[in-house]
């Protein structure tokens, strides 16, 4: 201990602290997504929003967001790609098609390799007529 100058110890400690700090800062993207409602009628507009941030919570602006909506049956709806804003947020609107089948839909977004999913329901409008 006595042979090593004090400043070497200080330097080593600082380097270790820096390595830990950098390790925490290295980006591991985390995506989130949600819809404004849990259920929609046909021809209604679903407002989709989410975020793309690093695991430490730093917003990732300009990240391309790929979105797909998988219905209970039939083909997957693919939405145009979008990008996150300066706060790492993104927003999309999706008009529920008039021929959309009833059931649970799975909304998937992928950005920077991070996947986020949410589900919502498409329910048929029922007109009740009392006679």
């Amino acid at each position, binding site marked *: 201990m006595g042979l090593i*100058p004090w*400043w070497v110890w*200080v*330097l080593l400690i*600082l*380097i270790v602290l*820096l390595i830990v*700090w*950098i390790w925490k*800062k*290295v*980006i591991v*993207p985390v995506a989130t997504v949600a819809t404004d409602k849990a259920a929609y009628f046909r021809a209604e507009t679903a407002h989709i929003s989410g975020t793309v941030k690093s695991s430490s919570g730093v917003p*990732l602006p*300009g*990240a*391309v967001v*790929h*979105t*797909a909506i*998988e219905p209970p049956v039939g*083909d*997957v*709806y*693919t*939405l*145009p790609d979008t990008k996150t804003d300066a706060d790492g947020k993104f927003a999309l609107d999706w008009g529920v098609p008039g021929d959309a089948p009833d059931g649970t839909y799975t909304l*998937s*977004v*992928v950005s*920077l*390799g991070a996947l986020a999913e949410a589900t919502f329901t498409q329910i048929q409008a029922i007109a009740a007529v009392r006679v």
Partner: protein
Amino acid sequence: MLSLIKKLWVVALIGCILIVLMTLEVRIITFEVERSQRVIPSSGVITAGVLPFGVYWDPTGTKQVTSISWGTLSPGQTGNATLYVRNEGAAPIYCAVDWVASSWIPQNASQFFTLTWNFGRAPLYPQRSRKVLVQLYVKPNISGIETFSFDIVINAQDEPY
């Protein structure tokens, strides 16, 4: 004892190291973001025509299918691969799957296999993806073949097959 000047040099050195490491960290972040945005070109296993469509592993279209590994199959067994065919054009398309006869290795192997998929006859409308199951059936009478490879072709056209 270190003189005051030497101590100042040490502090300056530590400061320089700090700046270098912080710059390095920024470069690491930038590199990570840019690398994630790259698109890996197809190796040619899946071929596409003039009608724009893509073949992906995921419904969002981020993982392009460049090859399919069937793993180890026994006679009479079927290998499965689930893909998403995505219409990236402006008109409905109809798709069919086939293999390149001349691409089989060994050349006589094709007689022992059957390739099918469940894309169906319905058109795939623009900006939609269809989840399809590609199946490779190994006939029970296969013999003399330990490993195989071949190119799968997915064709698209604007009229039903």
